[in-house]
């Protein structure tokens, strides 16, 4: 078959067209770029919204559109501050001085703002606020955020007991949250210092009538149990929103993985400058970066190890070194479940495994603490994006104290500790075990490699390996107490030291329940700190708790990570508050 002349001519014409258009494009790009879509803000990230219900969503990707963009709380953090508040739907921030906090610290009164309208046009009433908080408490989905307010208000972490039976009554909830004239009153089970910190981030307000009209709870005593522990998708609020915030939900497009918000022109403050906000999930970094480069995106979120690929993009600004209220740890299990556990080898101290109580020995823990190279972990696993923490109370929180000692890498001290471990037998017998880590988490993989190399360099009889496991399998390992040592992170639910001291050091805390750590003195101090109103006294108690963490060493505190955002230089009004799940679009504009 011969090449027909027309096909050659067509190919030549096509090539010529491409070349000429390319040259044209180059000229056009060089001519300077005006602001693209000036009243629409496009944010690209890699997470995915799971629910838009303010009382069920418990992950940052879902929370970003919810709070404070669509649903608002009674008070909010002032600017970048974590411990100063501004009124939002309330007209005043309760304090002892203004008498809105009772002298015993048990009752908080929030006078409500008048004339605030929901997105459906209805006017916010105290009844709506009371309903929203009761709904938050009583829906209590398994694994959801309800415990945050159940704990201070009712003194329980769940509305159900361990067998799944309801353990609270509607009367208790009525006594805890109720309307008084044009105010809403919260009566606590016990004095709880971080209460305002929680109220500034949780408890978005929605209209009761709207919710009830869409098959949600009507607010009645007789019906609430029917709505307890719901499936996420069963709620109308799963994909419908009706708040008071500066933006309204236009659409949640689950196929395109994007949430579109549109400006609330009847907002109780000055309406936002942006007309529309699009939050889209784009998993591939190259696509995110190119869209930012082309001006089709205004801000992109990327992981720490991708930062170098975004640095220096023309017409963009990178906001870096934004400290997160979080900590990454390496944890010891004091009481390993050795039944059918492949990670403990023989399950004995015979050089071919480790016994159940291997890490209950302080010398073993100290040996690891001195052997681990923290600086290398920070630079290799986190690309230097973070700081070394001083215990569980991280920088930015009340009670953070850089004078709290940390374990510095020391080969000699590590050897000395290991020689004392297990009654002096460990150095001669050695050990063998495996560290599981979340597959795909390169930071943890690097950390595990550093740990293995550091420990094996001390003594060839110290055999440590690591294995990647899917997140689901790691959950299973932790749940069945089969983890040996494991990397876990903790991100603040609210920026108060109690949210770190309790899960790390209380015998009932999240981590001690998995790892078996128990110190009654720590329990006593945690209770004392949370009931203390005076910030200076609280700070002193949290320092004591940090010292306990240092001495008992149930965890190695590895990194307090930072984050960064890359945005077009035409974005203005941006500020960072580490407790915000994402951007606060109200202050943003493009110019």
């Amino acid at each position, binding site marked *: 078959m011969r090449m027909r002349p027309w096909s050659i001519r067509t190919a030549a014409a096509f090539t010529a067209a491409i070349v000429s258009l390319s040259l044209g494009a180059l000229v056009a790009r060089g001519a300077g770029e005006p602001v693209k879509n000036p009243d629409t803000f496009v944010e690209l990230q890699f997470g995915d919204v*799971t629910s838009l219900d303010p009382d069920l969503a418990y992950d940052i990707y879902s929370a970003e559109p919810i709070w404070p963009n669509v649903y608002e709380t009674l008070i909010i953090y002032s600017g970048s501050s974590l411990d100063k508040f501004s009124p939002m739907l309330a007209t005043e921030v309760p304090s002892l001085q203004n008498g809105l906090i009772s002298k015993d610290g048990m009752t908080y009164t929030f006078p409500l703002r008048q004339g605030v309208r929901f997105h459906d046009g209805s006017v916010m009433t105290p009844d709506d606020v009371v309903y929203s908080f009761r709904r938050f408490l009583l829906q209590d989905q398994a694994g959801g955020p309800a415990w945050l307010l159940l704990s201070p208000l009712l003194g329980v972490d769940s509305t159900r007991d361990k067998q799944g039976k309801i353990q609270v009554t509607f009367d208790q909830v009525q006594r805890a949250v109720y309307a008084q004239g044009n105010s809403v009153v919260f009566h606590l089970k016990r004095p709880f210092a971080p209460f305002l910190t929680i109220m500034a981030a949780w408890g978005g307000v929605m209209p009761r009538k709207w919710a009830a009209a869409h098959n949600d709870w009507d607010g009645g005593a007789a019906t609430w149990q029917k709505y307890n522990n719901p*499936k996420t*998708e069963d709620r109308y609020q799963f994909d419908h929103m009706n708040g008071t915030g500066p933006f309204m939900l236009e659409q949640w497009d689950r*196929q395109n993985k994007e949430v579109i918000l549109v400006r609330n022109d009847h907002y109780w403050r000055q309406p936002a400058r942006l007309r529309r906000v699009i939050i889209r999930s784009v998993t591939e970094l190259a696509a995110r970066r190119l869209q930012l480069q082309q001006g*089709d995106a205004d801000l992109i979120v990327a992981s720490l190890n991708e930062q170098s690929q975004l640095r220096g993009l023309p017409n963009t600004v990178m906001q870096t070194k934004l400290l997160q209220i979080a900590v990454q740890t390496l944890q010891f299990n004091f009481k390993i479940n050795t039944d059918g556990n492949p990670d403990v080898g023989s399950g004995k101290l015979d050089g071919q495994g480790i016994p159940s109580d291997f890490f209950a020995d302080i010398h073993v823990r100290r040996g690891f603490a001195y052997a681990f190279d923290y600086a290398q972990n920070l630079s290799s696993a986190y690309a230097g994006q973070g700081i070394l923490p001083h215990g569980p109370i991280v920088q930015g929180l009340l009670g953070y104290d850089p004078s709290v000692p940390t374990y510095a890498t020391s080969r000699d001290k590590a050897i000395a500790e290991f020689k004392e471990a297990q009654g002096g037998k460990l150095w001669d017998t050695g050990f063998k075990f495996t560290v599981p880590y979340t597959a795909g988490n390169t930071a943890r993989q690097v950390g595990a490699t550093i740990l293995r190399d550091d420990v094996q360099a001390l003594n060839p009889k110290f055999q440590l390996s690591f294995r990647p496991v899917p997140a*689901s399998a790691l959950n299973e390992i932790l749940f069945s107490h089969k983890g040996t040592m494991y990397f876990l992170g903790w991100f603040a639910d609210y920026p108060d030291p109690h949210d770190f001291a309790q899960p790390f050091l209380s015998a009932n805390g*999240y981590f001690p329940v998995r790892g078996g750590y128990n110190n009654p003195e720590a329990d006593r101090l945690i209770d004392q700190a949370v009931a203390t109103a005076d910030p200076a006294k609280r700070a002193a108690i949290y320092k004591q708790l940090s010292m306990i963490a240092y001495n008992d060493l149930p965890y190695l505190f590895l990194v307090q990570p930072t984050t960064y955002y890359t945005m077009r230089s035409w974005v203005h009004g941006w500020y960072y508050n580490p407790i915000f799940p994402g951007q606060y679009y109200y202050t943003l504009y493009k110019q």
Partner: protein
Amino acid sequence: MSRFIARRLLLLPFVALGVTALIFSLLQLLTPAMRASLYITDPKQLNALPDIIRKYHLDQPVYVQYWEWLRQVLHGDLGWSETAREPVLTAIRGYFPATFELALYSFACILVLGIWLGTLSAVQKDKIVDHLSRSTSISGASLPTFVWGLVLLMVFYGHFGWFPPGRLGLDADLFVRSPQFHPYTGLLTIDALLNGQWWLLWDALRHLVLPVATLTYFITATLVRITRSSMLETLRADYVRTAEAKGLPRDVVVDKHARRNALIPVITLAGLLFVGLLSGVVITETVFNWPGIGRWGVTASQQLDIPAVTGFALIFAGMLVLGNLCADVLYAVVDPRIRLQ
């Protein structure tokens, strides 16, 4: 032929049942705690694991869970997909048109280019055209899709700004969400035409160019090789030599006599390729942020989204059977000597 088609269609429910039972059983090899992880976005929710297991009946015996699922299916409900955040059937209806549109345009390009280049290679065997077409197509198959996709994206979007990722640009995206637009088919190019919106058609086509080019470059190689070898075999056949000896022009011999017979293996392959494209082209969809079914299927599998994976398998088992059936019917159309029994 109608009996043959009916018999094949009757097999469909059994194939679907077998596939779903197999997948369901395999997934039950994982513990309830592992399967419950689908509902856990943060390890701090682990305390609620027993509650979650109870709530979603994950501790029930496998046959009870399968029967529950089957009962739902018989009522037209494939369950809820936690990864798509919507019912499985709605998710399939939503994702499928995007993949179908991409597959359709890619398949047309692959078919035209593959058969043309394969024929050209066979006719010009061992000449420069043959070497060029073979090396070009082989390089396409050898280069990982994501590399080729990213290169195209960087050049034609990052540099020239011509062909953006995604399915539509911002204005077009907002327009298709407005009440002025009626989505008839879910295929944006067709819907744009039916709505008489030429600018929308242009926008949709612009977004299709790079993913289609990527898939075409990647997949055409297989078709070129099969067409080439089939054509070479046919060109050596007695009846072709006879036709040439009778003095028929070379073009007529190739186009009318040889190629038609050489197409039988090509049809088999093309059928499988099309079903393969429909079942999702994960990497291409990921690179170009294309909201297709493949990307969702992979996410669902990774997160142990059992209703989604099982529903996905059910639909594609059906499509595979139908795809093969179409190929069988096409045999008979292309080659009248073949009769379907």
